[in-house]
């Protein structure tokens, strides 16, 4: 049982790209993320085709999503600068919503050893990448809207004694973002795998409503919400 669980937790090489004599292994995490990206791009093109002043059915769906993201960012960042950050935060939110709930779309019969759709954030490298992207946006926001001088000055505010703590802030924020996402997704993933092993009939369907859907969407929301809170802190 432990071996099965470890096998499900680890990332595996899905295929290898041979290029100029080098062999580049591509893991199943990357393939899963490519699938998610393809789904997002196709959905975006499909939902925004033939836009009209009087919205039809699919335009309504697109407008609800965009409105929700705009309101989330506007509430957190404030009415002045939210427009510059809404696309990034919306992209991360939609990507994470799909990425964290991807294991419920696992309808391809792949067997135990084959390729399966599993949430990519169960690997800490994916979570750290997303957190580093977020902290880069926070630094960009500080430099862009305060100027380089004003941004450097913000390190010694309110008093110069706070300098080390302000520098530590830029390390602690991405660490806690990454660990929160990774821990939650991995924890929920392990619980679900254990339930698949112990009670394979009926129970997984009910319990995955909480662990896959609710927890995944909540963590995606918390990640993008905290990112926008950090951006608004950098803008102050």
């Amino acid at each position, binding site marked *: 049982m432990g071996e099965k669980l470890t096998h499900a937790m680890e990332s595996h090489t899905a295929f290898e790209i041979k290029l100029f004599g080098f062999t580049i292994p591509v893991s199943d995490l990357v393939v899963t993320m490519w699938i998610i990206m393809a789904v997002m791009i196709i959905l975006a093109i499909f939902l925004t085709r033939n836009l009209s002043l009087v919205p039809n059915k699919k335009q309504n769906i697109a407008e609800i999503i965009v409105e929700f993201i705009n309101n989330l960012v506007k509430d957190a960042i404030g009415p002045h600068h939210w427009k510059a950050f809404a696309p990034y935060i919306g992209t991360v939110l939609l990507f994470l919503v799909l990425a964290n709930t991807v294991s419920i779309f696992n309808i391809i019969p792949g067997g135990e050893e084959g390729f399966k759709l599993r949430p990519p954030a169960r690997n800490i490298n994916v979570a750290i990448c997303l957190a580093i992207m977020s902290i880069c946006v926070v630094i960009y926001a500080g430099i862009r809207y305060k100027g380089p001088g004003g941004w450097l000055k913000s390190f010694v505010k309110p008093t110069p004694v706070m300098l080390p703590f302000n520098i530590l802030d830029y390390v602690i924020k991405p660490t806690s973002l990454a660990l*929160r996402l*990774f821990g939650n997704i991995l924890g929920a993933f392990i619980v679900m795998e254990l339930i698949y092993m112990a009670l394979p009939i009926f129970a997984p369907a009910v319990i995955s409503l909480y662990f896959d859907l609710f927890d995944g969407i909540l963590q995606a929301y918390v990640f993008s919400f905290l990112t926008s*809170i950090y951006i608004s802190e950098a803008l102050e």
Partner: protein
Amino acid sequence: MTGTSIIAIAAAIAAFTGIGAGVGISLATGKAVEAIARQPEAAGSIRTSLLLGAALAEATAIYGLVVALVLVFLKMG
């Protein structure tokens, strides 16, 4: 005692961080419910700060979980 059982006990102790996170989140939720009961029109902004506080409190439990998982899967495997 064998090494494996000591690791299991260590992982169990690491999971005790959940107590603190549970108390923290329940305190925050209780206060938020009180605040919404007193001022229902401020429910939106209370909800956002509640989510933020719950996410921060929950992070401590997650650190414990990560430590326990690392102990179990890296040391035993």
